[in-house]
C-alpha cells in the first residue's frame, strides 16, 4: 500500500519514529485484545475461565489445553452449521456476482436516458443502508407460506440481495477505469457486447471482481437477523450456532470462545486478502482507497 511518500511531507527524527511506532503498537494491541482474550479463553479448562491471573497468557498464567477445540469439532451441529454457512455464503456470492457483474458493466459503459446512471447507481446502493428489520416480517411471511422456513434457499436469496451493492460499486469503478478502446476494437472486429464483456472487460477486472467476492462472502457469512428468523435446526448457520452456545445453564464461555473464533476466521481472513478494496466497498465508492 505504500505509494508516493506516505509521510505526507513530514520529516521526523528516528527518536520520534520510535515513539510514534510504540504508540501505534499500543493502540493496535488494545484493539487486538478482545480477540486475544477469546483465543486465551478457548485454551483454558472450563474451571479456569475466570480464575486465571493477569493477562491470561498461555503457558505463563495457565497450562493451555486443546480440549475445548477437540470437543467442539466433534459436535455434529458444528459441522452442520459450518457447512451451511459455507453453502449459503458461497452460493449467495455467486448469485450476486451473476446479477451484479453485468449491472456494474452497464452502469460503467452505457448511458441510460430514462433514468440517469447516477440515479440507477444510487438506487442499487441505497438498499445496502436500508434497515433489514423493515423486510424481516414480509420475508418471514412469504417464506413460511411457501414452506421455505428452515431452508438454505431462503437464506441464499436474502443474502444475495443484501450483498449485491458491493459487487456493483466495486467493479463498476474498475470497469470505468479500464480503457474503453480495447472493447471498441473488439466491437469493430465484429464481436458482440456480450463477448467484449466476457472476453475483455471481465478478465481485466478480475482482481476487483475477486475482491468483491471475498467481501460479499464475509458479509453473507456474518448475517444474523434473517438466519435467526428463518432457520431452526436444519438450516442453522454459524451465527445462529454461536448464539446457541448459551443455553439454560448459562453461557458456556469455553465453547462460545471456540465457536466465535471458528466463525470469525473465514470472514476476517478473506477481508485481509481483499484489503485493497475494503475502503471502496464499505464507503459505497465514496473513497477509492
Amino acid at each position, binding site marked *: 500500500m505504500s505509494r*508516493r511518500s*506516505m509521510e*505526507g*511531507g*513530514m520529516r*521526523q527524527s528516528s527518536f520520534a*519514529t520510535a515513539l*510514534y511506532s510504540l*504508540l*501505534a*503498537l499500543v493502540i493496535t494491541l488494545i*484493539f487486538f*485484545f*478482545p*480477540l486475544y482474550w477469546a483465543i486465551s*479463553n478457548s485454551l483454558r479448562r472450563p474451571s479456569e475461565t*475466570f480464575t486465571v491471573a493477569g493477562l491470561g497468557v498461555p503457558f505463563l498464567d495457565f497450562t493451555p489445553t486443546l480440549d475445548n477445540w477437540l470437543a467442539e469439532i466433534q459436535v455434529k451441529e458444528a459441522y452442520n452449521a459450518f457447512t451451511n454457512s459455507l453453502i449459503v455464503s458461497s452460493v449467495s456470492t455467486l448469485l450476486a456476482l451473476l*446479477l451484479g457483474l453485468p*449491472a456494474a*458493466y*452497464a452502469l460503467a*459503459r*452505457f*448511458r*441510460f436516458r430514462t433514468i440517469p*446512471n*447516477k440515479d440507477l447507481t*444510487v438506487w442499487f446502493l441505497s438498499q445496502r*443502508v*436500508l*434497515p433489514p428489520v*423493515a423486510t424481516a*416480517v*414480509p420475508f418471514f*411471511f412469504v417464506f413460511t407460506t411457501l414452506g421455505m422456513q428452515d431452508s438454505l434457499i431462503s437464506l441464499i436469496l436474502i443474502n444475495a*440481495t443484501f450483498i449485491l451493492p458491493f459487487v*456493483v460499486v466495486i467493479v463498476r469503478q474498475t470497469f470505468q477505469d479500464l480503457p*474503453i478502446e480495447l472493447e471498441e476494437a473488439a466491437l469493430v472486429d465484429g464481436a458482440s457486447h456480450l463477448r467484449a*464483456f466476457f472476453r475483455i472487460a471481465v478478465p481485466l477486472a478480475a482482481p476487483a471482481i475477486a475482491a468483491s467476492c471475498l467481501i460479499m462472502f464475509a458479509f453473507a*457469512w*456474518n448475517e*444474523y*437477523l434473517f438466519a*435467526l*428468523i428463518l432457520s431452526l435446526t436444519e438450516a442453522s448457520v454459524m*451465527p445462529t450456532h454461536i448464539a446457541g452456545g*448459551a443455553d439454560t445453564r448459562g453461557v458456556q464461555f469455553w465453547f*462460545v470462545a471456540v465457536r*466465535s473464533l471458528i466463525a*470469525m476466521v473465514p*470472514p476476517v481472513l*478473506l*477481508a485481509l486478502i481483499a484489503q485493497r478494496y475494503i475502503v471502496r466497498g*464499505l*464507503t459505497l*465508492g*465514496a*473513497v*477509492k*482507497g
Partner: protein
Amino acid sequence: MRWSGKVGSLFLLPAVIWVLVFTIFPLGYSLYLSLHNVTSKVEVVGREEVPVLDADGNPVLKPNGEPRTRTEVIRELNRTFTWNDFANYGRAFRDGQVRDAAVFTGIFVVAGVVIEIVLGLVLAYLFNRPIIGRGLMRSIMILPIFATPIAIGYLFFTVFYEEGGPLQWTGLPWLSDPTMAKISVILVDIWQWTPFCFLVFLAALQGIPDEQIESARLDSNSNWDLWKTVILPALKPIIIIVGLLRLAEALKLFDIIATLTKGGPGTATQSYTYYAYTAGFKLQDYGYASALAFLLLIVVMVIVTFFFRFLRRTYE
C-alpha cells in the same frame, strides 16, 4: 465516452428485477402489514390416518398383520389482516418502550459515530507518519470490521465479565448497571467501527497531493496549521460521508445487543431494532413490528438521502 443503445438495458435488467422483487416488494408488503392488525391462528383443517413406522422406517404391523395407524391432525396456519386506521402507528408513539429504545439508539448512534470519527482521524494521522510495522498493524486494525458481530457480542461478554474478567480491576459494573451497560455497548461499537473510519481517513490522507502539503509547509511549520488549512478541508466531504454512512448503519444495531446484553439490564440497552424484533418475532405482533420497522425506515431514508446527495457526483 459511453455507449447508448438497448444492449445496456439487457445487462442491467436482471439485477433491476431482482432488487424490485427482493427489496421493493417486501417494503411495500411491510407498509401494508403496518396498517393492519395481523392475527395468526392455527386451525385444524382435517384428520388423517397414517401408518406408524419403526426406527428403520418400516411400517409397524398389528397382530393381525394389518399396518398399525395413528391419527394425525392436519393444522393450517391462517393469518388474517384487518385494517386498523393507523392504530399501530398511534400505539408506537404512545409506547414508552419505543421511546426508551429510540432514545438509547439515538444516544448510541450519535456518541458512537462522533467518537469513532474523532478517534479514526487521530489514528489515521498517527499511521500516516513514518512508523515501523505499519502494514502489519494496519492489517490487525481491519480485523474488528469483519469479525462476526454475533461473536463480538460474546467476546465482549467475557471481556466485561465482572467477576474474574480482564477488566475486573476497574471495579466498574460493566454490564450490570443500566447506564454503564449503555456505555459498554457504545464501547463495543467504537471497537468495531473506529478501524473503519481510520482506514477510510488514512486512504483519504494519502490521496492528498504532496505539493499541497509542501506548499502549506512553506507558510507555516506548525502541524495544527497544516491540518486547519489543508488536511481538514480536504477530508471534510469524506468525514461527512463516513458520518452519514455510519449513522445509517448504526441505527440497525441488533446483533451485538442480542448476545452482549439481550437488551438488559431490564430494558436499558434495548435498541430500536431489537425492540421491533421482539415485538414481531417474540410477541407475534407482526403488524406492530412492521409499523416500528417502517418508522425506522423513514429515519434512515432521510439520512440516506443526504448521504447520496453528497455521493451522487462520484457515480458519474
